[in-house]
């Protein structure tokens, strides 16, 4: 077979003109195809990502209603933030919501995944389909449906509970009840998704490990807590971080089910930012809030990655145990 043409070409000296091009232009031209291919992302990011992020920073130092003139006010927006009880409240709400539903949801997802993964259970596909189904629902439809179901006087849930002599629960009328209602909605919508993730993670645990543990005398519960959970750490971490971000980002669910109430009990940071920007027309202040929000969520995610995502090697070394290192 003849030598590839490109190799033959390389034997010839480069033409004069090419050697006089500036280096960067030469590089650009030589690698023009990959640069071209990746450029749409960077161009779009530049327009809709980088520039807005910087403009937002600039906006946060100003006061602007979007229509009139901008007024420079320095760090006033940020000092106002520190005293904004509602803004602080929105973070408190998110934290409360997080602890209300995330552990429950992840545990449920894991338990479901373990059960479905078990050889005892037939009908894997059907169950998985059903449990995953809520994932395709848009949050507006789901929110209204839950509103109907959880109506204090006429909802199905309270009617059902009445059979057991339970008084009508004020799901959407009390601050705590509203948080619980929201949690129920989110768990319903997302447990299937998390379960699917866990299933995939479970399937990476070789059966030999579980067999070995059982041979060593461990029962099901011990296998669950000492083998499965540690090995599922990457998946659990991913789910936790995603859920954290998701909790602070809640918008459609709140806008439909509780509208931030009652008594501001379900205001989330995004709802607050949106409200200040598009109901009060305080674009500068809203920008300051969104930057603060960004920093807080980022730090939280980092913390979670540090604490939950510890390298398995470290733990083994710390404990000095004879547990085998699972790749």
């Amino acid at each position, binding site marked *: 077979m003849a030598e590839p043409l490109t190799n033959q070409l390389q034997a010839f000296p480069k033409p004069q003109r090419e050697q006089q091009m500036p280096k960067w232009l030469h590089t650009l031209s030589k690698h023009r195809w990959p640069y071209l291919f990746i450029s749409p992302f960077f161009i779009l990011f530049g327009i809709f990502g980088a520039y807005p992020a910087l403009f937002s920073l600039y906006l946060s130092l100003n006061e602007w209603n979007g229509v009139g003139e901008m007024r420079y006010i320095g760090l006033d927006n940020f000092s106002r933030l520190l005293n904004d009880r509602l803004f602080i409240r929105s973070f408190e709400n998110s934290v409360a919501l997080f602890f209300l539903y995330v552990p429950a949801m992840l545990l449920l997802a894991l338990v479901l995944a373990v059960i479905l993964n078990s050889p005892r259970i037939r009908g894997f596909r059907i169950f998985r389909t059903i449990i995953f*189904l809520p994932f395709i629902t848009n949050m507006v439809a789901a929110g209204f449906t839950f509103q109907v179901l959880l109506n204090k006087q006429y909802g199905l849930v309270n009617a059902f509970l009445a059979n057991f002599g339970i008084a009508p629960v004020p799901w959407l009328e009390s601050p705590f009840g509203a948080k619980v209602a929201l949690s129920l909605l989110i768990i319903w919508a997302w447990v299937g998704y998390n379960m699917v993730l866990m299933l995939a993670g479970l399937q990476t645990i070789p059966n030999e490990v579980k067999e070995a543990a059982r041979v060593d005398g461990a029962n099901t519960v011990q296998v669950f807590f000492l083998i499965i959970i540690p090995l599922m750490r990457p998946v659990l971490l991913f789910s936790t971080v995603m859920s954290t971000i998701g909790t602070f980002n809640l918008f459609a669910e709140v806008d439909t089910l509780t509208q931030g109430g009652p008594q501001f009990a379900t205001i989330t940071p995004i709802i607050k930012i949106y409200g200040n920007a598009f109901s009060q027309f305080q674009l500068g202040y809203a920008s300051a809030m969104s930057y603060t929000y960004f920093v807080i969520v980022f730090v939280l995610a980092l913390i979670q990655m540090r604490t939950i995502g510890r390298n398995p090697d470290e733990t083994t070394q710390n404990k000095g145990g004879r547990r085998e290192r699972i790749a």
Partner: protein
Amino acid sequence: MNGSRKFTDFAVTFGMYAFLILISLFMILPFVWMVSTSLKLPEDVFGLPPQIIPNNPTLINYTYLFQERDIVRVIWNTIFVASGATALRLFFCSLAGYGFAKFKFPGRDRLFGFLVGTMIIPGAVTLIPVYIIMRDLRMIDTLWSLIIPGAASAFGIFFLRQYVSSVSDELIDAARIDGATEFGIFWRVILPIIAPGLISLGLIFFMGSWNDYFGPRVFLKSPENFTLPLAIRSFQGAVGLTSYNTQMAMSVLSLLPLLVLFLVFQRRIVDGITAGAVKG
């Protein structure tokens, strides 16, 4: 001894099934209620005791939507936005994925790291300026405002790059020798091979765009431009009365297409979700 072992076995298995069935019921109940309410007359929505199967089932909510509310237009808007956004994103992401996976060029790793880093910027930070940009471009209240800003999806590039890496280099070199253009290689060699990945990712994009509420809420103004989630939320019923029955009918309509997609492509959707998380 054997007997008690068998009994424990049975109890555990029974318990597992019972648990699964219970959870499944919890998952299905809202759907059942949605459909049921959509078939009820307004006065039956809050009737006591609550009827799972309506006493007077009726299709008037659906006929109302089609005849007096131009729901077809809303459905079309949603299809247009979801398809457009998905197509555009798949195109750009596969292109960039190919660029990062199969080419060596200066700054490649750093640029890719930067790309991954952009995934942490929350939408809230860029929301207001993007809104202003759209306004100055006169694109507020157009469907394009929902398609274009999101066309740069770092996650999509990340996802597809892995698929593209699995394409054999020999295949690409052979195509080059045959004189194919770089773009031609992309179009004729790469795309067909990563088709499963495209389908998975495409389904995720499509469903995400279909169900998006935040974008439409911010960028759309006129009812004739609404997408389904926004239409459900903004629905004003007849004089003063609550309109759950029609809202549920709209919800059912918003679900059906995705349900079909989901049932047909379930495998692909699951692959798409897990690939992003577990491998990463």
